[in-house]
């Protein structure tokens, strides 16, 4: 039975990711998974690329998952799930299964943008009926905050440390949502846990579309972002309102912005509470902060143009 998107109704649903998991205090990822599963009204099978979410939700004999869940290596969450989905289709064809089952792959930005990119690209191209969800926290947080291709420009990580030689990462992040949309898949979207209704609507919509779907969801990490444990929702809200993380969807090649901030705040407001950007507020790095703002503005304008063209 489909659940309406009211918190009162949603709260009556069973937790399919239970408490007792060992993600850090204040982590954004369990909230992202919780919202995705709350918006899923079907039996679901998940695969999970190696990463924070995988290692801390299934330790020894303790698992926080109440759904069939497969731990895969770093690079093959999409490949593993596409195999399971193919088996399901085969069993269904032979009349050995009649349930409507949905498939979700979870991966962090390291397992999605970098290591798992080729298997993800393959699964999308082959057209498997599944959703790939990337919870993007912008670095390899699980192994100690190493830069990934999702790490934003100017961020301090352990492999691009800000100091007298370089002011943090000197390259911009890769726009993975657009790369996935370029596979001409029926649905690609970007979401944030701060805008839960938007996120859940996108998940619901994705489940009703046949074929490969991709969702990129911002997932604040207070350890890697060097921020407070209580600010994951506040920071994701600032990311959206500064247009650093615009909320949009690309359905059958048509771009639609699903949320336009009432007032676009400077990206510095999103960056200021985060220690990984602390050095950008020093006078000698003013140029880089300006460059970050210019880049955000440029990307936002580009997206608005794309949305206008349809």
């Amino acid at each position: 039975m489909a659940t309406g998107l009211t918190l009162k109704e949603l709260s009556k649903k069973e937790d399919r990711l239970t408490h007792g998991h060992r993600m850090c205090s204040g982590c954004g990822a369990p909230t992202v998974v919780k919202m995705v599963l709350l918006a899923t009204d079907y039996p679901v099978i998940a695969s999970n690329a190696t990463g924070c979410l995988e290692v801390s939700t299934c330790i020894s004999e303790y698992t926080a998952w109440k759904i069939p869940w497969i731990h895969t290596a770093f690079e093959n969450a999409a490949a593993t799930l596409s195999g399971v989905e193919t088996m399901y289709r085969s069993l269904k064809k032979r009349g050995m299964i009649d349930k409507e089952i949905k498939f979700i792959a979870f991966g962090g930005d390291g397992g999605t943008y970098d290591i798992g990119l080729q298997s993800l690209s393959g699964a999308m191209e082959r057209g498997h009926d599944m959703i790939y969800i990337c919870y993007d926290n912008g670095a390899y947080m699980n192994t100690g905050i190493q830069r990934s291709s999702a790490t934003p420009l100017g961020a301090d990580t352990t492999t691009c440390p800000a100091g007298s030689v370089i002011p943090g990462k000197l390259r911009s992040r890769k726009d993975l949502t657009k790369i996935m949309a370029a596979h001409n898949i029926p649905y690609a979207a970007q979401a944030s846990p701060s805008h839960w209704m938007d996120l859940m609507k996108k998940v619901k919509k994705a489940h009703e579309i046949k074929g490969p779907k991709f969702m990129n969801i911002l997932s604040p990490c207070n350890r890697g972002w060097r921020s407070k444990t209580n600010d994951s929702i506040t920071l994701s809200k600032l990311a959206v309102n500064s247009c650093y993380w615009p909320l949009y969807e690309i359905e059958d090649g048509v771009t639609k912005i699903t949320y336009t901030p009432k007032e676009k705040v400077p990206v510095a407001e999103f960056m200021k509470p985060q220690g990984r950007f602390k050095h950008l507020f020093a006078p000698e790095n003013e140029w880089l902060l300006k460059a970050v703002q210019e880049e955000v503005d440029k990307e936002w304008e580009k997206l608005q143009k794309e949305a206008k063209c349809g």
Partner: protein
Amino acid sequence: MKPKGWKDLAPGAVVLEGGSAVNFKTGSWRAFRPVWKEENCIQCLFCWLYCPDMAIKVKDGKRAEFDYDFCKGCGICALECPGKKGKKAIEMVEEGK
């Protein structure tokens, strides 16, 4: 004494059921404890939604007590709580005080 073979060892690290993590309590991680003040609660359920540890109980659509066995004390609930007339329904209190 006859040495034991691998078949004699007790099985370990076997997941016997889904959601077995409920037997692993994470409440001891907490440095600050959220305290719910029901009189300021407007039942918006944002705390339940944003809690990363599923440590806020809701019964029949109404907010119930914190589950202190699992709350890690991150404080997201207290920060996001809109409260009533400017008064928050969740306050963070240092443990042991």
